[in-house]
């Protein structure tokens, strides 16, 4: 059992607050991704869990044990570093065996675990080599093998794929996912790559300026972002945000984009009432709109500015007032720049956001921050 619990963690560097009262609970054997732009505190948080940087406030618990003031070696963790950090003066075998030898494991067990780890990462024929004679991808494999060989309950990974080239990263991503699924470790994985986060994590904690904005499974983080930042940080293209005016018409709440009326679903009536005659953001993902070639009563007529054929989709750029809207369409949908198309907004797919705070407007908070 290795549940990881971070409580009210604060870490400052001088006046800069890198981690700002973060609470995080990672369940036993769960794979959690810390995602955020550079400087958001995700690596600092990971290092605090690893014991490589002491927290200024708060506690870290691993498996119901308070490890806040323990040194890394006493936390029963292992880690993969961004720059691999494999020991250049040791052969691959000794690198992988390092953690086991430090823990005074019996020789036969060391041999067996090193062979197993090497096999899992397909480097069993390189055990006699020095890391200096290996490529970046191979060194990364050594680093992962070293981390899994100790079979600790907690595995921490700090942007392990960011130093690999794009193709290798894609390959390693899938391999790593299947590998980690077989291990029984509780894993925290830091990345700034939203695709990596979506594809690998059981849950994603999106961070910004030292705080966790949303902590949820990938589908929900993608489909129902808790605020504007999460919506625009995750997804390619990012979520669209259009300005809309909230109005009451015959008792029903409407959101107007120019002359076009959107009817929010019934459960949104209540929360949106507070925004009556105010402007809000209408958030919708590029693939969630329907594009029609001919007019329809519930579709907005727009002029296409740019058409980008991307193979699996055609990405349309459309200007609505001052806002830019990206719409993805089926590649068979033939349209050229400056032509008019009609867009339908399925109300269920829309995220309504407060324009000032960027927070999602929702019937109840627990629906967003489950």
């Amino acid at each position: 059992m290795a549940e990881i619990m971070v409580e009210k963690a604060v870490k400052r560097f001088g006046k800069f607050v890198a981690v700002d009262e973060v609470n995080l609970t990672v369940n036993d054997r769960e794979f959690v991704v810390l995602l955020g732009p550079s400087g958001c505190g995700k690596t600092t948080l990971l290092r605090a869990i690893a014991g490589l940087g002491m927290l200024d406030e708060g506690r870290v618990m691993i498996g119901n044990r308070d490890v806040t003031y323990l040194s890394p070696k006493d936390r029963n963790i292992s880690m993969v570093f961004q720059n691999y950090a494999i020991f250049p003066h040791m052969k691959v075998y000794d690198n992988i065996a390092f953690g086991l030898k430090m823990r005074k494991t019996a020789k036969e067990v060391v041999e067996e675990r090193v062979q197993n780890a090497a096999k899992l990462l397909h480097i069993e024929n390189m055990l006699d080599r020095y890391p200096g004679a290996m490529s970046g991808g191979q060194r990364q494999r050594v680093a992962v093998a070293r981390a899994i060989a100790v079979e600790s309950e907690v595995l921490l990974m700090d942007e392990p794929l960011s130093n690999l080239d794009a193709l290798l990263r894609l390959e390693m991503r899938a391999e790593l996912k299947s590998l980690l699924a077989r291990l029984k470790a509780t894993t925290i994985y830091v990345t700034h790559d939203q695709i990596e986060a979506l594809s690998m994590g059981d849950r994603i904690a999106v961070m910004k300026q030292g705080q966790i904005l949303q902590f949820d499974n990938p589908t929900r983080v993608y489909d129902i972002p808790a605020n504007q930042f999460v919506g625009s940080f995750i997804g390619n293209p990012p979520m669209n945000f259009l300005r809309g005016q909230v109005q009451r018409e015959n008792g029903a709440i409407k959101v107007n984009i120019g002359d076009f009326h959107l009817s929010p679903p019934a459960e949104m009536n209540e929360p949106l009432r507070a925004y009556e005659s105010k402007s809000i953001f209408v958030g919708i993902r590029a693939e969630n709109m329907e594009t029609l070639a001919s007019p329809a009563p519930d579709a907005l007529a727009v002029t296409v500015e740019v058409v980008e054929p991307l193979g699996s989709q055609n990405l349309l750029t459309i200007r609505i007032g001052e806002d830019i809207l990206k719409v993805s369409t089926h590649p068979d949908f033939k349209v050229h720049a400056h032509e008019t198309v009609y867009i339908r907004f399925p109300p269920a797919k829309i995220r309504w956001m407060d324009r000032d705070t960027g927070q999602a407007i929702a019937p109840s908070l627990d629906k967003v921050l489950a």
Partner: protein
Amino acid sequence: MTTLETPMNSTTTRPSMEATAADRKRAKRRHSIRRGSIYVLACIIALWILLPIWLIGTMAFSTPEDVRDYPKQFAPIPASTETMDFFLNTDGIQRAARNSIVVAIITLILSTLLAIPAGYAIARYLFPGRDAIRLGILSVRAFPIVVLAVPLAITFIKWDMYDKVYSLALMHTALTLPTTILVVASVFAGVPYELEEAARIFGCTPAKAFWKVVLPLAMPGIAAAAILTFVLSWNEVFAAILLTLTNRTLPAQILYTLDKSGDPFKFAGGFFMLIPSLIFIFFIRRYLFNMYGQLNK
């Protein structure tokens, strides 16, 4: 080559085929001139240093008659150890050489042992007064030992340390320590901190991480610093003259007898003094670049 071509093509607005070919030729020529002049310069510098060494080396292995001869021959054929024999068998030289070696070895050991923790602290830790300590270490070098000569001699006599091999070694340690510390610190700074963190994650205490990871990786550099210390001590003459009388080290002994001896003795002595430096250079080249194939980054 490509870096030279790119800006040129952009300046010719519409390059016809001939123009580009001519440009390329000119660029190539400019490139080879630049390379050539670097080589010429390197050769001049190398000759500047190597010619005296060559002169001393050839003279040391010529017969004493050839040494006195003029013009000097380019190479000593046949080579003769007569001059070297004469030098090594001069009264007091072997004893002085032995003293020099003992002093240099003690200095090497003390200086390196002290420099390792000091250099590591300077390279890794931001402790209060770090910059002051760094400056303090350097200022030892900046302080001319001549000023200290009389007080030093008096103190050593008072403490009954005068004219002892070990006391000269202590003096040399004090003199070489700043250089050794700074070299060792830069060696430690070159070992990525992440490796140390990795070692700690995988079960090391900070001390063990140093012993298992940092020290082995820094070893080539520390070895280089140690040999440098040896050479510094071997060559040091002022403190040696100041603090010893009967237990002279080699440079002190040679200097002492210099004006009384002929050219063959000087050349042989010069060559003998050169040997550690030469070994140092050859050793360091191989050791620094070839330890573990390509060392980190």
